[in-house]
């Protein structure tokens, strides 16, 4: 690499860092549109512990089916699963009780408006299926003498949107009792109608096309064949009626971060001090090499922040921040391993600096690869198996490790290659020195010198 080329590369990297840093923080209106650009660092989704959110309390209605507590627990689990499927991996659902009355408290992070929570999980309601010989009028009240065949809280397990023959459909899954009841209902009212009532008013009237005995039904409609939102609204409403207990919306309020209002500020300050000290440490210990590592680290941190803001699974919580800090530590680690190797190479040989650098990179590659792959294995397994709140942590760790290998093995190397044509002989600049007399590494023999007799193996 010649001098000209290396100056060009260094300039490009500098411009990249400056632009990435600016775009991370500034916000401005985009010309010609109504949209604003928000710095990507500000758009990272934060968890309950860092940013607070909205808490909604749902009161559990007493009913006559018995064993309320078990069903409340079941509802807590299905609410949790529902929120995770909507992408709110950090939401918490808690069972509360006072004076024998149960309530379920749902806390959703990163939501500004209390009403949004209700849009997310629907407004839990009483869901009833009634067979009918004619198509009902939407909004009409449930007949007082209606024979309710299926109740959401007792029979329905889940409702979700699926794709069939290119159209959106809503799939219903019933539990065992529900499957039986639904089979009876569909055989009795074949080619007639099933009226779906929500809170006693007709929500939809569905024609029965065939007898369904396997406990799983598909509802098609022209209304949502091409419209995902309409199908999803319908499914959410049914799902909200499918919880094991009947819920009514209680108090909905905004909540502050569980770690305190200044948690994010504290984390940023601590991170800034820590990273600043790492920068100084590297520059002092390894001089020019450390400078290259610092620049690479800056690239690394900017890329990491960018990935965290664009990837949908990342909802940053305190453990997520730990994942980030750990991966920053590992990014530095890879550089330290390489530089220690370069030092050793230079010290105990007569190689010129460029060859020592080359040998150092080559010989530390296996160690860095093995160390990172083992950590990567852990991250991937957690990503696949771990429960929702751990997935965010696993994802940040995963991105961090891949990026740290990239910056240490590619960016740092490129930077040092660029430094070499500018200055390839100064020991001072690279913080290297030859071994002094008396420091020369002894050729150690690792073979024990104890006498070996022929029969000893036995």
């Amino acid at each position, binding site marked *: 690499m010649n001098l000209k080329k290396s100056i060009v590369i260094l300039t490009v990297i500098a411009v990249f860092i400056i632009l990435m840093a600016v775009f991370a923080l500034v916000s401005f209106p985009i010309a010609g549109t109504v949209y604003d650009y928000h710095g990507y660092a500000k758009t990272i989704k934060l968890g309950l512990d860092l940013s607070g959110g909205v*808490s909604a309390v749902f009161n559990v209605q007493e009913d006559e089916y018995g064993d309320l507590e078990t069903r409340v627990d079941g509802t807590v689990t299905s609410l949790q699963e529902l929120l995770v499927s909507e992408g709110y991996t950090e939401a918490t659902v808690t*069972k*509360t009780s006072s004076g024998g009355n149960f309530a379920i408290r749902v806390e959703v992070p990163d939501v500004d408006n209390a009403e949004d929570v209700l849009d997310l999980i629907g407004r839990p309601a009483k869901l009833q299926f009634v067979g009918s010989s004619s198509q009902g009028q939407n909004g009409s009240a449930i007949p007082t003498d209606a024979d309710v065949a299926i109740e959401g809280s007792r029979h329905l397990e889940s409702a979700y949107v699926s794709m069939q023959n290119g159209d959106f459909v809503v799939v219903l899954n019933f539990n065992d009792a529900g499957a039986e009841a639904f089979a009876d209902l569909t055989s009795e009212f074949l080619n007639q109608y099933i009226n779906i009532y929500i809170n006693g008013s007709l929500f939809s009237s569905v024609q029965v096309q065939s007898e369904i005995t396997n406990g799983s039904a598909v509802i098609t409609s022209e209304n949502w064949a091409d419209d995902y939102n309409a199908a999803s609204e319908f499914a959410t409403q049914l799902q909200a009626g499918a919880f094991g207990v009947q819920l009514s919306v209680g108090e909905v309020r905004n909540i502050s971060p569980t770690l305190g209002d200044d948690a994010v500020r*504290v984390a940023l300050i601590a991170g800034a001090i820590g990273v600043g000290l790492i920068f100084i440490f590297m520059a002092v210990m390894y001089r020019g090499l450390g400078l290259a590592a610092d620049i690479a680290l800056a690239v690394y941190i900017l890329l990491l922040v960018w990935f965290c803001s664009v990837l949908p699974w990342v909802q940053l919580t305190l*453990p997520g921040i730990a994942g980030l800090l750990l991966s920053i530590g590992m990014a530095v680690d890879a550089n330290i391993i390489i530089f220690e190797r370069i030092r050793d190479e230079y010290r105990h040989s007569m190689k010129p600096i460029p060859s020592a650098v080359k040998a150092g990179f080559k010989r530390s590659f296996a160690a860095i690869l*093995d160390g990172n792959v083992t950590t990567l294995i852990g991250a991937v397994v957690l990503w*696949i198996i771990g429960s929702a709140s751990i997935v965010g942590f696993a994802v940040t760790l995963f991105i961090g490790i891949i990026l740290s290998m990239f910056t240490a093995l590619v960016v740092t190397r490129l930077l040092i290659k660029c430094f070499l044509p500018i200055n390839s002989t100064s020991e001072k600049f690279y913080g290297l020195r030859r071994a002094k007399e008396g420091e020369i590494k002894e050729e150690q023999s690792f*073979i*024990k010198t104890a006498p070996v007799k022929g029969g000893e193996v036995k």
Partner: protein
Amino acid sequence: MKAAATTFLDRYSKLRVSKLTKFTFLLPLIIVLIAVAVIVGVGETTGNYTSAVGIGIDFQGGTMLTVNNLANNDELDAKIDDLADVIEGVRDEHGSSVTISYTQTLSGSGGISVTFRYQNVSGNDDEITALNDAIITAVENALFPEGEAPDGTVTYEQIGATAAQDLLSKAGIALAVSTVLILIYIIIRFTPTAAFAAVLALIHDVIVMFALTVICRVQINSSYVAAMITIIAYSINNTIIIFDRCREYLKPMKGMRNIDYDAIGDTSVRENMRRSVFTTATTMITVVFLAILGSSSIREFCVPIILGLIAGLFSSVFLATPMWAAFTRQWDKLKAKRAATATYGSGDDEDKEQVFAPVSKADEDDDDGFAPKTSQKKQGEGAKQNKPKGKTIYKYSKKNTTFKKK
């Protein structure tokens, strides 16, 4: 000053971790014993073993106390702190008091409310109710020093665990699966003995980190699971880097006998010491500042990480390589034993090249693992006889007392 530095360097250059195993293997044991003593001690006095271990509100549930209708002004934060002190000051009949885990303000319709969540200190429902009633009275008195508090100012309810039911079990399964996969990876890239040493070091980290957390009386909440995974990922990395150096030293010695594994391990540890310490320091620095600046619940998360980083550094430096050396030595002995079913060759004419037929034994791939049979050309084993003879040539040389494939 200079003299001190030289003696330090002098002593450091003679550091042999394999000679320190008497102390280094004892230390984790002592820590675990102290932790057990703490758990039993606290558990016996309070009668509540889960809180003695430090299982927190996320897994256990507890009480949520809500104070309603607070004025939203500049003094709110100070007010909340005062109330927290009042709550933590109330003692039950055993003299124990609650520790607040989370404080949260609620805004929206109906003014500002503050919730305090804390773990119940007793397992008895009546005692819990008595303590909560006492706390309510204390808080009401603090809010309205003279006069009656309006109804509904302070309410409490029992809350269940917020950590998803399957958090622990799934984390446990994930850890087990990843440990097995890591084991397999190290077996492939290194040796089985290195893999077992690394995994044992890993288990050490988990146990010691847990023991240290108990000793430091840090509550275990859902973030602790993430902290532990962080440490495991980090420590295995540390160990691997040192094993990489061992692997490098062993490479030219493949197939030799009487390798001094302890010396290899010691040298590798020594040469990697700068890197091990630097790396742990650069990782720890940010977490330390987070612990210093952050609130108590942030500290609850950072302290286990700091303890775990130290445990991880300790196990990588002092435990992993001596274990590896010992395992490998035993492994070699085992192989030699298995191979020693036959006696050594006549041995007098070692300078002459001898040609042996291949020995079809299970450990044929071991370079140093078997000895030839005497006069086997004539009386080989049954399975061998059908094979074409003399296809593989083994050269016998006394220099390293091994057989090399030519």
